[in-house]
């Protein structure tokens, strides 16, 4: 199957800093559900920025929808329009993503940039607000919403453009359990419609809900595994080496007990010292 998104030996460093990504190569096919897994600072968010054509690699290349992403390719061309419509990026910080005066304006921002007719945009806004169960927020000020509501508005602002790929940066971070569950259900439903999902996360408990395949980034910013999510979760050695699981600490009476394990399944441990 032809790759929808791919990264070919990508190296990237922020100006004046050490490498954030080193020799990253992988491909994502249409309809896949992929997780970028790694500890904080491993380069997950940077990689999503590269896949969205916001940064460009110093070495190697990133391809999307059959074209190499370069500054000139994304500068006012027909491809740029297609790319911006088809690839949606949910930022980790909803505060930065929501910049309009009302929820309606926020959701309309992308379609307006594409020059869609107002009537069509209005209809879509109504539909997408219904799907996300937030029609009552339409005229509200985005900055005054709760975290869960902000995340849903940010997602609505992407879904309204009918994307074929969603890049999600820690989508469940800072959400309460109910909002988390709503978001996961929604993403699962969207995936069933054929949407490609690329999610950056370090939350192993959510991995089975977010992805079928996992790309694991090490703390030295290299891709160290590309395997089915279940296999990655079962590989304790790998998860320990990339700092995704750790020496778990808990109290037995007055004594702090310590042993390594991951938090994704129930576990037993002896109560001796």
């Amino acid at each position, binding site marked *: 199957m032809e790759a929808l998104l791919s990264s070919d030996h990508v190296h990237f460093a922020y100006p004046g800093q050490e490498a954030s990504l080193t020799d990253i190569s992988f491909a994502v096919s249409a309809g896949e559900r992929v997780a970028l897994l790694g500890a904080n600072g491993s380069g997950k968010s940077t990689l999503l920025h590269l896949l*969205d054509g916001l940064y460009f690699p110093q070495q190697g290349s990133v391809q999307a929808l059959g074209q190499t992403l370069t500054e000139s390719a994304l500068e*006012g061309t027909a491809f*740029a329009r297609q790319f911006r419509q088809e690839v949606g990026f949910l930022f980790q910080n909803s505060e*930065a993503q929501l910049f309009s*005066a009302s929820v309606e304006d926020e959701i309309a*921002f*992308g379609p307006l940039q594409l020059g869609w007719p107002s009537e069509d945009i*209005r209809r879509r806004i109504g539909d997408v607000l219904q799907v996300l169960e937030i029609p009552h927020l339409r005229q509200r000020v985005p900055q005054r919403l709760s975290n869960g509501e902000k995340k849903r508005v940010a997602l609505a602002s992407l879904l309204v453009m009918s994307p074929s790929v969603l890049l999600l940066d820690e989508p469940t971070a800072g959400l309460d359990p109910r909002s988390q569950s709503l978001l996961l259900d929604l993403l699962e439903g969207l995936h069933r419609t054929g949407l490609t999902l690329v999610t950056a996360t370090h939350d192993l408990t959510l991995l089975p809900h977010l992805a079928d395949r996992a790309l694991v980034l090490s703390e030295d910013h290299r891709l160290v595994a590309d395997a089915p999510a279940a296999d990655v979760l079962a590989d304790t050695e790998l998860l320990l080496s990339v700092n995704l699981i750790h020496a778990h600490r808990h109290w037995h009476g007055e004594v*702090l007990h310590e042993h390594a394990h991951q938090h994704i399944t129930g576990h037993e441990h002896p109560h001796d010292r």
Partner: protein
Amino acid sequence: MELPDWMRTRVRPEPLAAKHTRRRSRRSFVRRAVGAFARLLEEMLVSEKMAKAPGLLQSLDARVKVLGLVGLIVIATLLQRPVALGLAYALSLLLGFASRLPLSRLARVWLAVPLFSAAIIAPATLNVITPGPALLVLWHPAHHHFGPWALPPAVTVTTSGLAVAGRFLLRVGVCVTLAHLLTATTRPDRLLHGLRALGVPRIFVLLLGMMERYLTVFLRSAQEIHLARLSRTGTLGSTRQEQAWVAAGIGSLLRRTQALGQAVFHAMLSRGYTGEARLLDPPRWRSEDWSFLGGIACLAILLLRAG
């Protein structure tokens, strides 16, 4: 792993000695800064509401307002006679009332502007800058010569100096009131659309658009920095210490600014922003817009003839 003793015990802090607690009844400078950020955020929301409220200028197309009000500002800078400037001032106030702008808001513009402008223009009232008939003698300098410069025997306020200052204050008052009317009665996205439609370069509109969208995020961030400081502070420092902290906070805010600004720009870019201001309800020229423009053109001619 064993925790160190100090982490295993809970010690209640001693209450501060009376000498530390008695003297403070003033509000913390940091808390005042937090309040100021909150007020600014609130004001931005109020401005948005005001621009949507019913009123003469609110009902007009942004392009018409930009053309009409900026045109009046240009004309105000050409007027010389106080009567003509006074008429222009009266016109700007009438437009404010017809747009149902709160009096307190307009008054703030009227009070702040003359105050700052008066400070700037004050030296021009003296015979040292504007020679003319003396109205009030201020000072008889003992020495008239300072190197290559020479002072008159008496430093006085002159009638011609006062006329210059009066004209300046009126002109500034008219211009600022008109500019305030434009921004207070037009939603920012519509204003940008109007500017773009009238040929303002895309890069300029792009920068303004980003700035406008970034401002709320910036203010919230500034508020958070100061609140984080307050939450870790049990006592008030001296005003000077607190001012130093707020100044340092501004430095850290500027560093954050760069990251936040980039995040907002990326979020806009990611959804296809190219610098064009686009609206869900693109405005159409209506008879009211033409009438307003016609009326402003007639008044502009009258003002030019008067002044």
